């Protein structure tokens, strides 16, 4: 199968669905003729013009609220935030309107909307361009949250988002954008709430999110040489979260680590940990471990930036400690 990048895979999903569904339109800053700061819409403006590739003024609250009205009346907006930190200007529209309207209208109004943008720490982007924020959206009823870690998942999860009725946060870690992987040329959908077991093992289970997935996989290949077989799970979507696959794995391994670049308090690791404790306590042979980035705004200087993310040594140590418990 041909290999393409994460960005190309996601753009292919958008291109295919825009051709099939004339109600899809994209809004964002520089997503028109420019093709998107991260090439998310490259080549689409020439095909579809300004009504469907809508460059906006810098009004995140405004265009998110506007897209809510469009989604409620038969269109299918894709909001391209470029960098997801900018979504914070629109939180009222998201948490108070978009997540609630299907419910408040007793399902009579649909809210088909994709909210996409780059997340994550890297490239000395500093604190206004390095956030991830997904636990906030997982906490709120009414959102789907997709966190693909590879091109195949990116295309399949975005295709599902573009054909469903729900508001979907589609989050793209900036350090994954240029990674290549095998991707079918035809359109396909991946279900939400179905984790991928990327590596089978018996010594411990590691649930890894986004950029932590390739990092953890690489480390586990090294550990295998020492005879440590680690199972690695990528949830792929955080809302809904596939706890069944995680619980099954823990039943086998008895040990669980959640590796997540973003903050620990009230985060995804805390949630997974609580659920495994509630539903799989008897399967545990050791306390559940979490590995998170530092609970701090993201600093600029590379030495500081590296200090706030779990690096290779920290991940390796966390896994070895867990197995030794």
């Amino acid at each position, binding site marked *: 199968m041909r290999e393409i990048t994460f960005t190309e895979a996601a753009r292919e999903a958008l291109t295919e669905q825009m051709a099939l569904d004339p109600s899809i339109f994209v809004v964002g800053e520089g997503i028109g003729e420019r093709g998107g700061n991260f090439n998310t819409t490259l080549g689409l403006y020439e095909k579809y013009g300004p009504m469907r590739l809508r460059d906006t003024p810098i009004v995140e609250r405004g265009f*998110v609220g*506007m897209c809510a009205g469009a989604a*409620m009346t038969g269109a299918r907006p894709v909001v391209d935030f470029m960098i997801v930190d900018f979504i914070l200007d629109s939180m*009222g529209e998201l948490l108070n*309107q978009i997540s609630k309207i299907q419910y408040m209208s007793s399902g009579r109004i649909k809210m088909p909307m994709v909210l996409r943008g780059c997340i994550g720490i890297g490239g000395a982007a500093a604190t206004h361009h390095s956030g991830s924020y997904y636990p906030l959206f997982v906490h709120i009823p009414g959102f789907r949250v997709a966190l693909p870690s590879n091109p195949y998942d990116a295309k399949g999860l975005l295709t599902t988002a573009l054909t469903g009725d729900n508001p979907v946060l589609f989050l793209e870690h900036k350090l994954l954008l240029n990674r290549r992987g095998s991707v079918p040329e035809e359109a396909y959908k991946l279900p939400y709430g179905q984790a991928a077991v990327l590596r089978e093992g018996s010594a411990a289970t590691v649930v890894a999110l986004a950029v932590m997935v390739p990092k953890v996989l690489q480390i586990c290949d090294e550990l295998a040489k020492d005879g440590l077989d680690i199972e690695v799970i990528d949830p792929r979507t955080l809302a809904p979260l596939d706890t069944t696959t995680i619980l099954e794995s823990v039943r086998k391994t008895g040990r669980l680590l959640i590796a997540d670049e973003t903050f620990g308090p009230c985060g995804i690791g805390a949630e997974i940990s609580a659920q495994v404790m509630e539903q799989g306590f008897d399967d545990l042979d050791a306390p559940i471990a979490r590995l998170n980035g530092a609970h701090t705004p993201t600093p600029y200087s590379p030495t500081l930036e590296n200090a706030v993310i779990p690096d290779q040594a920290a991940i390796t140590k966390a896994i070895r400690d867990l197995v030794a418990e």
Partner: protein
Amino acid sequence: MANEDIALNSEQLLALYHMMVLIRRTEEQLARAHQMGLVPGPCHTYVGEEAIAAGVCANLREDDVVFSTHRGHGHALAKGVSPRAVAAELFGKATGCSQGRGGSMHLFAPEIGLMGTSGIVGPSILQGAGAGYSFKLLASDQVSVAFFGDGAVSNGAFHEGLNMAAIWDLPVIFVCEDNMYATEVAFRDATRVQDVAQRARVSYDMAAVRVDGNDVLAVHRAAEEAVARARAGGGPSLIDCKTYRARPHAEGMRDGGYRSAEEMQAWKERDPIAAHAAWLIEAGHAEAADLDAIEAQVNSTVDDAIEFARASPFPDPSTAADFIFGAGG
């Protein structure tokens, strides 16, 4: 009232009267029900402002859409939601227009274009613009109406929504209901420019008029032009309706201290329903008996609605978490 060149026939003129009386009586009954404890949550009435909803919505088709505010009972009724469905919703009943999920501030009837009233000041403006975007994208001749109060005019949503509607020529009618207060904050203390139409013209180059919001014919005429413009692809308009709410901000709230008895009395004398009634008779469109007949008919409709709401069942608790998600993804 100075309404010489009226293009409406007697039937239409009486329909406006009928709608205003329907809103008034429904609100009065809901206020009473609230006092009796039959409305478990908040209740913001539209008494005194009926001419705006009636005058605007008379120009809309069923498939045109309305985005409304916390003071939205009148908009819902004027868009065609039955008094039964509105009353039952306020009573928290399964037969309410939001099946008991919403109450006074979350009335939904999307099947007839009521896209929601809202507990948050501002978003109606953005969502109204978004529906306009949809209609333009999908080449539909539907139009979208966003109602909002003077309280929303200083909010960022006003600037962002009007600006987007203007630059993209969206088929939207922005209707400002300036009743001079946002809760107890006077509009004159919230802005240097109380002429909202001027703001729309100067800041966004938008067609905008300022009208007496208590004159149903003036509102109707302004809305007729705005709707025709939007439907013909001529872009958005703003109608700045000057009006006054006759009751407290919400039922059970105090109504003194921030506005004077003289001011309230002066506006009482400009009651939109009494004014329209007097004009209908003077212009020969109706006799007092005709208006009495409308009144009697409305009274029985509203009595029936309240009785329906009272007799309806509460929602099944097991459905409390239904409808959070739609299909797919």
